[in-house]
C-alpha cells in the first residue's frame, strides 16, 4: 500500500529534472572553458581555438580527452583518501547549488503543473550559502592532502578569502531578504515579477554581492588561491589528469551557478524584461521554455562579465584583498542593510 501511495510521477519528474540540471551545468561549464579562451583571445586581439571542429567548437572535448589520458599521479606522501576526496567535494558542492534555483516558469505536462525547480525549499538561499561554504572544504582538503607546503599555503589563502567574503556576501543579501520577506527562491522571483527587479532597490547590494561572488569563485582579481604564475599554481599543484580537471571544471560550474543566482536574486530570475508575457496568449510550456532561455541569457551575460573582468583587472595583493573584504565591503554591506531596514520600516511594506 505504501508503494502505491507514493507519488511516482513526482519522483520521476524530480529525477529527470535533476539529471537535466546536472547535465546542463556540465555542458555549460565545458563550453565556459571554450568561452573563456575565446574571450581572452578576442580581448588580446587574437582569434583563439579554431582548429578542432568548426570555430573550434570541439575544443572542450579535445581538452577533456587530453585530461583523461594524462598520467594519474598521486604523490607518495599524500593522504590518498583525502587526495581523491578533494576534487570530488569541489565538484559535488558546485553541482549541489543548482538544486534550489527556479529555472523557468512552471510547465504543464500531462495535466500536471511541473515547477522547473528541483527543490522549492523554504530556506532556499540559506541552502545555497551552506553548500557554497562547503566548497571551501574542496580547496582545504585538496591542499592539505597534497602534503606540499605550497599547496597548503594556497589552501589556507583560499579558505581565508572565501570565509572573509562570505560575510559581506551574506550581509548584502540580508537586504534582499528584507525586501522579499522570505528565504524561498521561488518567492524571491515572484516578488520581483510583481514589484520590479531587486537591482532597482539594491544597486549597492548587488555591487557588493557581485564582488563577493568573484571572490567566492576564485576569479581574478581575487584568484589568489590559484595564482598560477607567481604563487606556484596554488592548491591543485600536485593534481594531474582528471582530478585537476575536476577542480578546473568545478570553478566553471561555480561561475555559471553564481551567474544564475545573481540573475535570480537581483535580475528577476526567469522574468522576461520589458514585456507582459501573460498577454501573449501562448501555451504555458512554450512560455516556460522562453523564460528558461531568458534566465540562461542573463547567466551567460554574468559569465561573460566574469571573464571580461579576468582579462582586464590584475590580481590583488593578499593584504589588499583582506583590506577590501573586511574594511570596505563588510561596513558597506552593513550600512546598506541598515538603510534598507530603515526604509522598509518607514514605508511599512
Amino acid at each position, binding site marked *: 500500500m505504501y508503494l502505491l501511495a507514493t507519488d511516482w510521477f513526482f519522483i520521476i519528474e524530480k529525477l529527470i529534472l535533476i539529471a537535466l540540471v546536472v547535465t546542463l551545468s556540465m555542458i555549460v561549464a565545458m563550453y565556459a572553458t571554450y568561452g573563456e579562451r575565446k574571450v581572452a583571445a*578576442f*580581448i*588580446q*586581439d*587574437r*582569434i583563439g581555438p579554431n582548429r578542432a571542429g568548426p570555430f573550434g567548437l570541439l575544443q572542450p572535448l579535445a581538452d577533456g580527452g587530453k585530461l583523461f589520458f594524462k598520467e594519474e599521479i598521486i604523490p607518495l606522501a599524500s593522504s590518498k583518501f583525502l587526495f581523491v576526496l578533494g576534487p570530488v567535494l569541489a565538484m559535488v558542492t558546485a553541482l549541489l547549488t543548482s538544486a534550489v534555483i527556479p529555472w523557468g516558469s512552471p510547465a504543464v505536462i500531462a495535466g500536471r503543473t511541473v515547477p522547473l525547480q528541483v527543490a522549492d525549499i523554504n530556506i532556499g538561499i540559506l541552502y545555497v550559502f551552506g553548500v557554497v561554504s562547503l566548497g571551501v572544504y574542496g580547496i582545504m582538503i585538496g591542499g592539505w592532502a597534497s602534503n606540499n607546503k605550497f599547496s597548503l599555503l594556497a589552501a589556507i589563502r583560499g579558505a581565508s578569502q572565501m570565509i572573509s567574503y562570505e560575510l559581506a556576501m551574506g550581509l548584502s543579501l540580508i537586504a534582499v531578504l528584507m525586501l522579499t520577506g522570505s528565504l524561498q527562491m521561488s518567492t524571491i522571483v515572484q516578488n520581483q515579477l510583481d514589484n520590479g527587479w531587486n537591482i532597482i532597490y539594491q544597486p549597492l547590494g548587488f*555591487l557588493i554581492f557581485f564582488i563577493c561572488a568573484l571572490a567566492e569563485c576564485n576569479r581574478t582579481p581575487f584568484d589568489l588561491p590559484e595564482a598560477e604564475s607567481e604563487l606556484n599554481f596554488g592548491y591543485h599543484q600536485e593534481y594531474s589528469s582528471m582530478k585537476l580537471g575536476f577542480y578546473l571544471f568545478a570553478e566553471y560550474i561555480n561561475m555559471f551557478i553564481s551567474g544564475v543566482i545573481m540573475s535570480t536574486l537581483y535580475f528577476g530570475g526567469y522574468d522576461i524584461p520589458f514585456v507582459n508575457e501573460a498577454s501573449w496568449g501562448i501555451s504555458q510550456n512554450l512560455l516556460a521554455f522562453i523564460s528558461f532561455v531568458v534566465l540562461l541569457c542573463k547567466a551567460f551575460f554574468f559569465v561573460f562579465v566574469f571573464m*571580461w573582468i579576468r582579462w*582586464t*583587472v590584475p590580481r590583488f595583493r593578499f593584504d589588499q584583498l583582506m583590506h577590501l573584504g573586511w574594511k570596505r565591503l563588510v561596513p558597506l554591506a552593513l550600512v546598506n542593510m541598515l538603510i534598507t531596514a530603515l526604509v522598509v520600516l518607514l514605508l511599512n511594506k
Partner: protein
Amino acid sequence: MGIQYTNRAKPVDRSPMTWVERLYLWNILKGMAITLKHFFKKKPTIQYPEQTRTFSKVFRGLHILNRDEEGRERCTACGLCAVACPAEAITMEAAEREEGEEHLYREEKYAAKYEINMLRCIFCGYCEDACPKDAIYLSQTFTPANYNRKGFIYKKEDLLIPNPVTEPEAYQKALGTISRENQITEEVN
C-alpha cells in the same frame, strides 16, 4: 634632463588620489571599456597553413640549386659559397665530368655531393652573392620540418630545381618559389 627620445614622456604625478580614484571602481570600468574595444577590433591573425603572408621580393628562404635551360646543373663545385658562408653550413665534393655526361652537367667539373645543414644556415644569402655560376638561389620556401636532426641536412637531390626539359610543370612551380627578382635575372640570362 637626459635626451628626450619621444614626446610622450609624462612627469610622475605624485598628488594624492582623488576620491573617485581611491574608489577604484571607476578606473576598473575605464579599463573594461578599453578591453571591450579590443574585443571588437579586427584581428591581425594570419591563419597560417591556409593563408600565408606575402613576403618581400628579396625574401631569403630555403636554397635551391639552379639548372640551365637545357636542364644541366649549373654548379661547378668551386666552393665559393662554402667559403662565403658565415655559418659554415655548406659542404661539397667536386667530381670531373665524364664522357657522355654533357647533358647532365654544364661544365667539366660538377658537385658530386652538395649538402647544406639547414640548422646551421642563417639564411644570409651570401652564397647566392658569391656564386659566379648563378647556381644557388634562396627561394620563398621556408619552415622546414623534420623528425630528426639528420633530416635537416639537405642533400643535392633535395636542393636541385626540377629539370625544365623532362619536368617542365614542376620546374615552373619551383621557379615560383624563387623570388621575383631572381626570375628577372634568369630571363636576362
